[in-house]
């Protein structure tokens, strides 16, 4: 984002939405992670102005908020697609050949890890174990888990989204 568009985004940002979310957390301890989780649930990602606002309200440096946001895999600093594809790169899936599935998926979507398709329909991510290792190789699309995958099955599954 260029300097100007960033400034524009800041101006038009709806700070009230963040303020509402913050209410239940003010004057409590250990709230940084839950606050960011709430903001992400509301916006789908962590907008920069929102994080700056949180820092201001909690009277802590912005770097501290950024530090927490970038530490955990769960937080995203950019808008994500409508559907989130998460391919498992855990051990069980690795041993049962998930690499080929992951490659094929990236080829079909035309994006790499952490990227979103141009039409904003899919974001491609990789995770370490979904906890359905018995069905390896596994992926999730949103909350739905798909097991026993092969590269050939992917196109058919994606059609539903």
């Amino acid at each position, binding site marked *: 984002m260029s300097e100007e568009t960033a400034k524009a985004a800041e101006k038009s940002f709806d700070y009230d939405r963040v303020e509402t979310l913050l209410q239940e957390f003010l004057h409590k*301890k*250990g*709230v*940084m*992670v*839950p606050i*960011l*989780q709430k903001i992400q649930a509301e916006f789908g990602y962590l907008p920069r102005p929102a994080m700056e606002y949180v820092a201001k309200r909690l009277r802590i440096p912005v770097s501290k908020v950024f*530090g*927490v946001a970038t*530490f*955990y*895999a*769960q*937080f995203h600093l950019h808008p994500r697609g409508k559907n989130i594809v998460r391919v*498992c*790169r*855990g*051990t*069980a899936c*690795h*041993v*049962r050949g998930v690499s*080929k599935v992951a490659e094929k998926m990236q080829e079909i979507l035309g994006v790499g890890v952490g990227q979103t398709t141009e039409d904003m329909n899919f974001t491609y991510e990789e*995770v*370490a*174990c*979904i*906890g*359905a*290792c*018995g*069905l*390896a190789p*596994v992926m999730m699309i949103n*909350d*739905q*888990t*798909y*097991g026993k995958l092969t*590269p050939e099955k992917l196109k058919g599954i994606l059609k539903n989204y």
Partner: protein
Amino acid sequence: MYERHILICAGTGCISSGTREVKEALENELIKHNLQDKVRIILSGCHGFCEKGPIFIVYPEDIFYCEVKAEDMPELVEEYLVKGNIVERLLYKDPTTAGTVTSHEEIPFYSRQKRQVLRNCGVIDPENIDEYIIRGGYIGLKKALGMEPLEIVNTVKSSGLRGRGGAGFPTGMKWEFAHRSPGDKKYVVCNADEGDPGAFMDRSVLEGDPHAVLEGLIIAGRAIGSDEAYIYVRAEYPLAVRRLRTAIAQAEEYGLIGQNILNSGANFKINIKEGAGAFVCGEETALLASIEGERGMPRPRPPFPAVKGLWGKPTCINNVETLANVPLILRNGADWYSAVGTEGSKGTKIFALTGKVNNTGLCEVPMGISLREIVFDIGGGIRGGKKYKAVQIGGPSGGCIPESLLDLPVDFDSLTAAGAMMGSGGMVVMDEDTCMVDLARYFLSFTQRESCGKCTPCREGTKRMLEILERITRGKGEPEDIPRLEKLAVAVKDSSLCGLGQTAPNPVLTTLRYFRDEYEAHIFDRRCPAGLCRDLLTYYIDAEVCTGCRSCVKACPAEAISGEKKEPHAIDEAKCISCGACFDRCKFGAVKTK
């Protein structure tokens, strides 16, 4: 009055295999046959046999159907529920005898297990506290409330229970430290972060029997003198979080948590914290930092959490499975508990058996059982009749056990002596097609990515080790790479701040110890014995099998394949870039590697 109960597994594995669709179809069929008031459908927790899901059991007869689909419901209801004829094709077939079995107790996958901690998983409705209570739930807590805290500590101590979260620290001793630690505010924490990629036993316990964990937690609180608990659970486990919340609400309603629990005068509160996706947060001091809302970075110990933990207060941290063992010990006594297991490791252990075995899933076995029994009897041997190569135990902190050690008793001390580690209990089976160098590279890439970056040996050391391993798997290994790896491994192990770095070299060290020849083949012969490392493969076309369809010619990006239509094709090795496109494209299996 219901005549029959049907349990359908609603663990994560079975749901992805179609539990919801099966349930819907079953409901429709029951209504069609006017059976909806006679048959009760229960969605249960994980049965462990995820490979064969969805699992579908009919009680009281105990008929075990597996891999059922929504389309099977009309036949199942009509034939079995109405007419009483067993639907043979949906029964479990024993792969060794090819016979079918009707009851799950006859299936070797179950009959060789000792399901103590998992006794309720797949049997009760996890969202109904009464079902837990009917099966003896909260009796342990009741007993504990009538005991002096130190008496509870001593009972757990003499049971011999050791922590199931990885390190195997004696639980009673940990409780004693926290008990003796001065302070009016103390915390108990349940570690449900389960970060080991390839393990899901904590998930299944939380989803299938959440009250067992709560009961253990309340007992721990009583023992150390704490009135508040945190459960730190991965946000990747939404179902577990939901079931825990339901269980907590029910326990509050029954007066098992809250103010003056069971009129004992004691109070207890349980909070849930959702993790945010960082492997290192499973480490206890990092976990505490994460609960406090910070970046989850480990802190040096001492001071240990038992002295200075959450918000500086004495804190006792235990794993999910550890806590789920506790109610059994209180209810049945320490002697009952320690009757199972080996000298140094008492009770049972749950393993997540995955990889190239026939029966993947969760199994609970007595400590001391041999690896061979787990892989070949419970696991049903290697898939597709291939040859066993190794079992990887303990995840990124663990190691690989070769065939020569298959008779090793599985307990804390024997595994450590073999260079592996009990870890959380992930057990990934590998066959001849798995490349051990690639596996070591895989684990290092995991730990390198998850290293929090606080201490230098772990941050830099894992990175350098990974570079070497990547080089070897790409066919660019140097003769000095093996000694380099060994030297780095020892340095990282000895000087890292927390368990992540201290154990990260284990997968490399054990593969070097037991599969050194594979490293040497990669480095000196530029060959991958398992045929997995792409850059080291030579592709050729088997002229006998090739039909001359030209699809590989079109697929090749390097124009390295030549040949006329209906004539066998050939690959020009000089032009081939080993991308494998022809291999993937050929429908006849004519493209081979050497």
